[in-house]
Structure formats: structure tokens, C-alpha cells
């Protein structure tokens, strides 16, 4: 690499990462701001941290979001695994083309469109069947629907570059198709499932628009709470919350990267 090219690459990346991280860094810094005015530095303080941990409405919302994210990520991973497996391994069945489109479509569907359509579904079922009540269940169902696409894509991609003779070897050694799946296929695609689950979990935790449509009057998730607070202007407690979210996301991502690295090293990078 020539000097000029190296300098170009460095400049590009430095500028790009500064653009990506400067706003986040400022949010973190201002979470320790003494002043109520979020844009004026008034000295170091942890009072907004303390305030957030006494903000019951915010904590309740966080708890609800966490529960929904856990359940919906798990369900989405199970369904996404099935969908991804079918897409990668079953070349022909009736309605396959429709199925393939249905799996990917939620990924690229504008969220407002999905939101309104999901709400109409729940309103309709409420009219016809008298339930379920909008809240935890409806939000979870909505989140599963759009995050299962991401899991399915990850699983399908992993299965596509998976050496199929491994499965044949298992069957040759006496494993039934089911045992083959459990003892060979599943461990091999486990990293994909973990990252799929994490993705689904994050998407659920972060979703505002779909949730706002299907939540009903009683439930408020964390993003809904943050949104209603932010609409009124900048709020130092939100900076604190943002800092926590960023810290958790960063440490999870780093941990999972290190973990996958170790698995890959153990198995050889082939």
C-alpha cells in the first residue's frame, strides 16, 4: 500500500467514525451534566443517574420491554430457524415462492405500514373473537413477525455455506435425521442462532413504531416512554438511559465477537 493510499484510508475512516461516534459521545458526556439544560455544561454530576433509577414509570416501561424482548426473541429464533432451514434445505414445496417472499418482506416493509396492518389485525380479532387484549401479547406477536425475518436470513446464510457431507457422515454413522440435526446441524449453526437471537432481542427492545400502533392504552414500553419524553425536548435522564443502552450494547457485541472468535479458532477457520 502506498503512503498516499494509506493516508486516504486513514482520513476516510477517521472522519466516518467521528461522524458515527461524536453524537453518541456527547450524549454520554452530558448524562453527567449538572445543568438541567442539556446543551449547557454545568459541571460534573450524577444526579440524573440517581433520578432515573427513581423514575418508576421509566423502570416499569423498561421491565415490560425486557420481558417482551426475551419472549419475542426466543419465539422469533425458533420460527426463524424453521423458516431459514426450510429455505436452505427444502428446494420444492407448494407455495415456496410465496413463503420466501413472506419471510423477507417484513425486513424491508416500511414500519408504519406494518404497524397499521398489525393494529387492524388485532382490532379485527377483537371484533370477531373478543380478544386478545392489546398489550404484551399483541406487541410480542408484532415483534416476532418482523424479527423472524432477520433470524431466518442469518440461518439460511449459515446453512448455505455449510458442508452437507457432515450431515451425510452423521447419517452414515447411524444417526437418524432428527439426531443428525441435533448433534451436527444445530451445533454448527449455533453461532448464527445466538447472533440471530441477539438481533431479534435488540430489534424488539428498540422498536417504537410497531409497538406504538399495537400497544393499546395500558402498556407502555421503554421506547414509547422515551419517545413521549423526547418529543417535549431534550431530557438529561434520557442521556443517562442512552448511556446505559450504549454500554450494554457495546459490551454484548464485544463479548459475542470474542466468543465467536474463540469458536472459530477452535474449529479452524475453514
Amino acid at each position, binding site marked *: 500500500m502506498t503512503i498516499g493510499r494509506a493516508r486516504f484510508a486513514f482520513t476516510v475512516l477517521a472522519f466516518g467514525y467521528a461522524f458515527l461516534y461524536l453524537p453518541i459521545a456527547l450524549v454520554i458526556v452530558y448524562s453527567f451534566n449538572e445543568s438541567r439544560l442539556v446543551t449547557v455544561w454545568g459541571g460534573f454530576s450524577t444526579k440524573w443517574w440517581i433520578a432515573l433509577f427513581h423514575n418508576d414509570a421509566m423502570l416499569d416501561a423498561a421491565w415490560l420491554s425486557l420481558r417482551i424482548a426475551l419472549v419475542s426473541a426466543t419465539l422469533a429464533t425458533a420460527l426463524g430457524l424453521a423458516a431459514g432451514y426450510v429455505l436452505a434445505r427444502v428446494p420444492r414445496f407448494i407455495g415456496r415462492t410465496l413463503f420466501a417472499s413472506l419471510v423477507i418482506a417484513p425486513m424491508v416493509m416500511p414500519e408504519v405500514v406494518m404497524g397499521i396492518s398489525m393494529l387492524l389485525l388485532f382490532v379485527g380479532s377483537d371484533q370477531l373473537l373478543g380478544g386478545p387484549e392489546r398489550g404484551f401479547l399483541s406487541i410480542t406477536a408484532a415483534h416476532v413477525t418482523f424479527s423472524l425475518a432477520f433470524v431466518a436470513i442469518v440461518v439460511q446464510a449459515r446453512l448455505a455455506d455449510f458442508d452437507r457431507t*457432515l450431515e*451425510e*457422515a*452423521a447419517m*452414515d*454413522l*447411524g444417526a*437418524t435425521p432428527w439426531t443428525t440435526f441435533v448433534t451436527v446441524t444445530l451445533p454448527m449453526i449455533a453461532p448464527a442462532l445466538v447472533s440471530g437471537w441477539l438481533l431479534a432481542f435488540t430489534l424488539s427492545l428498540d422498536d417504537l413504531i410497531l409497538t406504538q400502533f399495537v400497544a393499546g392504552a395500558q402498556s407502555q414500553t421503554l421506547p414509547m416512554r422515551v419517545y413521549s419524553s423526547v418529543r417535549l425536548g431534550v431530557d438529561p435522564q434520557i442521556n443517562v438511559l442512552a448511556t446505559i443502552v450504549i454500554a450494554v450494547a457495546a459490551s454484548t457485541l464485544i463479548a459475542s465477537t470474542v466468543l465467536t472468535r474463540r469458536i472459530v479458532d*477452535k*474449529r479452524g477457520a475453514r
Partner: protein
Amino acid sequence: MSGPIVKIDGVAKSFGAVQAVAGVDLEIARGELFALLGGSGCGKTTLLRMLAGFETPDSGRIVIDGQDMTGVPPHLRPVNMMFQSYALFPHLDVANNVGYGLKREGVAKTEIAERVAAALALVKLDGLGARRPAQLSGGQRQRVALARALVKRPKLLLLDEPLAALDRKLREGTRFELVRLQEQLELTFVMVTHDQEEAMGMASRLAVMKDGRIVQTGTPHDVYERPATRFVADFIGVANILQTAPRRWLALRPEKIVLAANRPATAHAATGKIVDIAYEGDRSLYRVAIGNGPVMLVAQMNTERVRESHRRGDAVWLGWSDDAGQPLEE
């Protein structure tokens, strides 16, 4: 028990419009090291995969040790396979790879450990049970794959291009090793290869395949010295194929021809001119043009050290005996 261990009856298999195997009949006896030999796309791998149960024949029957296996799934067959890629499970260590099949049979843990250790000893990998496949060399991986397939004591061991992934040096040793194991364990091996040297050197019997059919079956000696068709004569080793009459040919191996400055005292002789010489050290290959007719390939051992025996452009005599060539009708 007696009778053939494998009986293949009129087996055919197509993939879409491509006919991979077009009606194969074959019997393999107990204790044979049988090779299926042919170029790529000749159907040999498909035939092997049908023995293992990964493909189902469109028609015909496959009987293994007296039992019809035609519709039986791979996990219920008394057959194990060594894959060309070895297909070692990367998430399991060597011992668990080798013990995988025994575990599926529900063999007791202590017995699994014993049999795995014995199998690893057999392939000279003692003490490597805790390694991961990624930590092994290519040759070691090949032996793990072999141990894994042998440990279940299959009635039939299938080997898909067993030496293809090894480098040249390793290949020689492994060849003898496989034959030694096969004889020691008194197992039946069926291997697939595209390498005629490998098939000739290892197999007790072999079948040459072309376009989904078997063109000739026999011992390596039979197939080399008495090829049934022009294809076999040309595919196994090198042969000069001379047309003797309409639809009649003679296959003449280069080493069966004598090259001399004067007319040799053989039953047949011809004069020609050397147009090319390939010096290979132990021997030389000569391309000799007979008048305006065919160019013959002749191999001569270089028994003299000091000077080259013949030069390009020399006029020479070629001679061969009555039984040197194999007459062909196809």
C-alpha cells in the same frame, strides 16, 4: 455366510435430464478391495452414494449381505463411508468423532472408549483423541475419517477418492496402509477413484465405468493386459491402437514393443523414424512415425548409462511378438 456381499441388479439413476447411472449389474465378493474407476461424470460416485443410501435408485435393486437395501435410509445400513472431504465434525474432538457412530448405536460408554482407543491405535493415532480436527494435519485427518468409518465394523467400507486430498508423498504410504488394514481386518472395501494408478495399485478387482455403465470388470492385470474396448485400453495406461481391418483394432502397449537399429527377430516388425523423445530418467518414450502412417509410442528402459541410445531423426526398427497386442472389436 457365502455369496457376494454386494449384489447390484440393473440399477439406474437420473438427475433431471442427466442419466448418472444407466443400468449397472455388479457383484462384489467378501473380502475384496474393489475399485470403481472412471473419469468425472461417469457415475461412479453416484453408484457409491447409492450403496451408502444417500441416493435412491430409480430402478433396480441393491442387496448387501443378502438383504435388500434399496429403500433403506443411510442410518440403517451396515455400511460406512470415508468421505472425500473426510467430513469430520469440526465441533467435536477426535475421540467424539470416532465414537459418534457407536454412541448412535447405544453402545455403553466404557465400551465406546475402548473401541475408540483401539480404532485410533489401528490407524496409528494413539493419544490424539482430545485434539480437534482443525489441529490435525491432512494425513491425520484422513486417518481419523478412516477410524471413524472402521470402528462400527461395517460389512462394507466405502471410500470416496480416499487419497485425493493428500499430497503425493503421503499418498504412496497411505496406499499400502489401506491395503494392509483391509487384509488385516478381512473387510470388504469399495473405493471410488479417477486415478487409474491408485486403482491398479490397490484393488483386487476393479470396474471401469463410462457414461453411467460398467465397461469392464476384472483384476488390474486383466484390465491392463486384456482391455475389452478401445476406451479401456486408452483409459488404463497408454496404448497404441492400430486399425488392422474394418472395425478391428489391435491395442499395443508401448513397453511391449522393441526398438532397435536393425530388424529385430520378432514376429512383427516395421521401420520408422523417431520424431520425438521424452527422457524420463529410468526410461525414455519415443514417438516413431511409421512411413506416412501412424505414430507409435514406444517405451524403452535406459539400461545404458553413458550414451543416449537413439536420437531424434534416427531411422529405427520396431518389433513385437504375436501375443504382445490385444485385438479389439469395438
